[in-house]
């Protein structure tokens, strides 16, 4: 396992590459999820403003 993580002494280069890729793709997914919640709650507020009785 430690040979896997050390990558023949090039761990810094290999894991900086894959780490950045993982962080960016995860961030994209999380941002999209948060955006969806924001849009739905804003539209929900607008709907309640339009029909306060519902």
């Amino acid at each position: 396992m430690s040979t896997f993580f050390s990558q023949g002494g090039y761990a810094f280069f290999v894991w900086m590459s894959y780490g950045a890729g993982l962080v960016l793709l995860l961030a994209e997914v999380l941002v999209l999820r948060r955006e969806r919640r924001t849009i739905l709650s804003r539209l929900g507020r607008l709907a309640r403003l339009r029909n306060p009785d519902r």
Partner: protein
Amino acid sequence: MKINWFHYSSPATFYGLAGRLIPWFAWIALILTLAGLYWGFFETPDRLGGSNPQKEYYRIIFLHVSTAWLSMWLYLVLAAWSAIGLVFNTRLSYMMARATAPTGAIFTFIALWTGSFWGRTSWGTWWDWDPRLTSELILLFLYIGYMALHSAIDDPRRGDRAAALLALVGLVTVPIIFWSINCPDPNQCAALHQRSSLDRIDPNILWAMLTTTLGLWSYSFAVILARVRGIILKREADSQWVRDLVTAESRA
């Protein structure tokens, strides 16, 4: 079976279809990417000989090449949706173009970033104004320019058309990136970036790379569809179907 494609060009219909497709693409993405990387890290030689000897750092290839391919491919997709939008004036095409750009920009950035770490180990430099690196950097600026222009124009329909035009003009970069490694005379154009050698590559490396690429391609489908659903909701906020949908969601 005859499929009426224009049926799905209505944002209301496409919203539901996209929502059903996203989990499939997400699972395929996860499985293929992990399988490709497992293959690439555990079933390949640690060192490569030949005219371009490489040590363990060559494993950056699986992320580098797949994101670089997809950065160019997604630009073609962006330009295609823009062209369809300009020709047929279909709202959904513009929304798809708008949803494609951020993912394309992220893949372009990852390709440049991983290339930099590979370059440091393989060539001894983080960056060089090599034709391939420079033209890929211009691609990143084009993606950013597309998004910036779109959001700088208040009227979304005008923004759609202006940004679509920019996307089509920027299309000239893609063949330049593609052929930028085929420098005919090394004395006239110094190219550090190695040429494509898909025909001579170890089959394990090749197939691991292709599997990872398919996985990330599937990922791009999932996130682009998720993003377009958000864009549809924002743009169609005043329509009856979105109002009904929001009422249904708030009751649930």
